[in-house]
């Protein structure tokens, strides 16, 4: 099964084996990984599933659509031009067997 490494800001890491076809957002929520909220259920409308993808995996990702790009401009933790993505828009599966991401400090405005 595809593996997802969730690195928390404090240094801890959760490693999840995700069912192929599952998004990085859904896998986090289903497995109780803190730091991803996913309030819109994966519609790229809430930006509470913001993640920073680790450099080694950026090349393997599907291109970003306009909605995702626009939402990434309004995340509560700052956008990183290279690494920021929405976890709901990235699915693991045959073309993405492994991914490592860093979680931001916050997903919602305090």
């Amino acid at each position: 099964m595809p593996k997802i490494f969730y690195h928390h800001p404090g240094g801890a890491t959760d490693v999840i084996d995700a069912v192929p076809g599952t998004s990085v957002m859904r896998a986090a929520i289903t497995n109780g990984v803190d730091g991803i909220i996913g309030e819109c259920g994966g519609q790229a409308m809430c930006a509470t599933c913001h993640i920073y993808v680790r450099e080694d995996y950026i090349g393997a990702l599907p291109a970003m659509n306009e909605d995702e790009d626009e939402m990434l401009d309004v995340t509560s933790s700052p956008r990183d031009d290279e690494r920021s993505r929405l976890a709901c828009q990235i699915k693991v599966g045959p073309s993405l067997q492994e991914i490592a991401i860093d979680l931001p400090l916050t997903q919602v405005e305090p």
Partner: protein
Amino acid sequence: MSRIVIIGGGQAGVQLADSLRSEGYQGAIDLFADEPHLPYQRPPLSKDFMSEEDGASPLPLRAGTFFGDRAVDFHQGVEVTSVDPVGQTVVASDGSTLSYTKLVFATGARNREISVPGSELVGIRYLRTLDDAKALQAELGSAKHVVVIGAGFIGLEFAAAARKRGLDVTVLEFGPRPMGRVLSQFMSGYFADVHTDSGINLKLGEGIASLTGVEGKVSGAVSTSGTEYPADLVVVGIGVLPNSELAVQACLEVDNGIVVDACLQTSDPHIFALGDCSSYPNVHTGARIRLESVQNATDQARILAKTLTGKPTPYEALPWFWSQQGAVKLQIAGIIHCDDESIVRGEPASGKFSVYCFRDGRLTGVESVNSPSEHMAARKVLEQRLPLTPELVMDADFDPKSFSRQSAFLNPNDKEGLERPATV
């Protein structure tokens, strides 16, 4: 020991349990949820869940381990059947009685049902719960003619999903416009066109008169104009009723929802209510409203957790909402009334535009189609009550993003319209 009892394991109840722990609450938390499932998100049920591809797995609100990790006593599949506000106890369907120091209603809402002749036929469905959605998802595989009663958000989201699967879809709406009460006239007209263009048979000004059947199973829907539309599946989406019966029984004030004050407290100082079941004074409109949205449920929960941990905090968050209908993403910031003055910005034909709504010269809300960043800018403008005028929006050089940013540095005394409308 102190004990907070939460009735309802939906978006509001689960977020409250979570936020209570984040706010440092150390007493007992008992969460009663009468549905047999682990708490799940409702919005996908009328969207992705209805598509052929998605494999129909619900999106949980939290992992199964959440309740143990957060020391929340989760009473799955157990209904609270009565409340004694004097003795401060609740009785549950498993026979248990529990005393509380604080009680919270997060009981949500249920579907309003139709009562026309034929309503009892097989093949007439509603869409609120995971069980509703699973039954519908299964029937979509074999249905050919679908009639949706009511052109509200959920009905239209479902209609768009069914149409995408190639089904013949008719939508009956008694009112003159789809989503007519809560959208600007322009936006609701836009959606009428979008759905009609996708091949949905949208019948405005036609309500449901009766349902016809063969051998106990629905076969058609007769509208108030007398026309019969073939149907092997009928989905009713004519709105919801707040679950407030227990509150009535506990002698709390109820008026289209459980009546609460700005801190979400009911007429009993030990009892609170939030989410779809509660009616609260909204500072942005100056009126008492009951909202049905994820934003409302979760933001109210985050604020109520503060109040319940000794930091009384009024709920003042800006309402916002989204809906996905086929390929169209609609996002709404603020509370719009269908007769607000509206100004369209952008080119509707391009499939990306916004409608700015004003009442007495004050911005009430912004509806955005496929424009998430404009929606987010609008939220900032509304939250900070920045002085946006119809003239500014009409200016060809108006840029919502920079307006929402620049104006944040204005001297607050310069913000006209800063004073709040009187609260009822």
